[in-house]
């Protein structure tokens, strides 16, 4: 009996062959899902994690939210971020004197102005898009861009100056170093 039930199992299993043919046959007549790239481009890039870029602050689109805490540069495992503050304006001799006098009097002294971002260099050739910098930033000044179409013959094209990019974006220029050549 065991042999016969085994045989029946084999014969009934043939149905799965028809099921397989039905699936591929259905796909054969279904519309294609791929995009013919140079002629068409995809439109669902909002979830794409492209090279990181700076986020503009709420009141000034040319200035980033960045507070130059350097946490992103420290967190980056590949060391592709170079962040530096603008050198603070050197106080003149009179200012120093006035400050010292005020301190001597016991008045409240206005502290130095908050640091301002001077350079934000981002070497995309080293970046592994892990997103640690985006997660680390305490003020949310970094985000993934949606630059999906990156191509260049030049390695230097992928070393971005993100501050200049932000300024371009504020002016309404679609930026991204490799595209800017076109």
């Amino acid at each position: 009996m065991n042999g016969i039930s085994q045989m029946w199992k084999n014969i009934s299993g043939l149905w799965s062959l028809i099921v397989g043919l039905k699936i591929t046959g259905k796909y054969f007549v279904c519309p294609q899902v791929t995009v013919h790239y140079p002629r068409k481009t995809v439109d669902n890039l909002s979830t794409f994690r492209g090279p990181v870029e700076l986020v503009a602050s709420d009141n000034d689109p040319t200035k980033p939210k960045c507070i130059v805490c350097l946490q992103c540069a420290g967190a980056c495992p590949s060391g592709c971020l170079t962040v530096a503050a603008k050198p603070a304006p050197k106080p003149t001799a009179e200012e120093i004197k006035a400050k010292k006098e005020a301190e001597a009097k016991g008045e409240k002294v206005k502290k130095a102005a908050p640091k301002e971002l001077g350079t934000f260099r981002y070497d995309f050739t080293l970046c592994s898009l892990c997103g640690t910098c985006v997660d680390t930033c305490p003020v949310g000044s970094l985000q993934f861009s949606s630059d999906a179409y990156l191509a260049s013959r030049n390695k230097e094209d992928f070393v971005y100056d993100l501050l200049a990019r932000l300024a371009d974006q504020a002016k309404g220029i679609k930026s991204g170093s490799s595209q800017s050549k076109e």
Partner: protein
Amino acid sequence: MNIGPITVPIELVRIMVAILAFSLFIGLNGVILVWLERKVAGHVQRRPGPYEVGPHGLLQPVADALKLIGKQLFIPKGADKILFWAAPILSFLPVFLLLIPMPFGPKLFALDVDLGLLLILAFAGVNVLAICLAGWSSRNKWSLLGAARAVSQCVAYEIPMLLSLLSVAFMEGTLNLTQIVNQQEPWLWNIVYQPLAFIIFFVCAVAETNRCPFDLPEAESELTAGFHTEYSGMAFSMFMLAEYSYIIVVCCVATAVFLGGWHGPFYPGSWWFLGKVYALILVFMWLRWTYPRVRFDQLLNINWKWLLPLSLLNLFVTAFLVKVL
């Protein structure tokens, strides 16, 4: 026929013209089937397939052929030179012989051979020899393993294939393909009387032509490319052309023997024959892109435990019915 002082038998002229026509047919089919195969593969996986060269990628196989012609013919160190180059030619040449008795239309055939079916079955075996030689002479373990698989597979699957065709031959009382087609009615084809034989023949045909899911002699994931691992350029394309030609041959045989050849419910003619052949080829491709490759023990089990007993049973029942009715 008289050409000047020499007398040439008319059959010879027929054969020469037919061989010329077959060269064209095979070459054209090679191009079309490569394109079709890739298009079918693409659409089954919901992508366009070749698209850039020519309209809908139609010129892609031509570009591929040019590339293959331009490639260096390379022979591995220590390989058997004569057998190595003989194998692709030996694989390709019998195709002409196999097409000679094929009845493409009521009047369209190279020669009306009385033992046409036997001729096809006999010379189809040469391909196995070619594959064996290719694997043996390449001095490569993948090639040798592929050849060993090809031989055991083709030898095994030839038996049920023969038996299933034999049951039709019993019914029709002839091995002449033209007569077999003539004896079928416009709608009542032999497949109606012999459905099991047709299924067995079709499965065996897939195995005989080394097509997926029975493509073990050239299983890419196990044997690199199997018996043609060491072949490059035109030598490889000869194998490929031969493979596609054998698909055409088995589909032609299936059409003539089981599907009524050029008969159709209206306007009987060669177009019916070619239409059925291409429909069968499409089914071949459909199978290829649906099923995964079977294991080698499974492959032989299907043959020895299922197809062979079933085809024997079919043959006995047919013989009995032919005798009684």
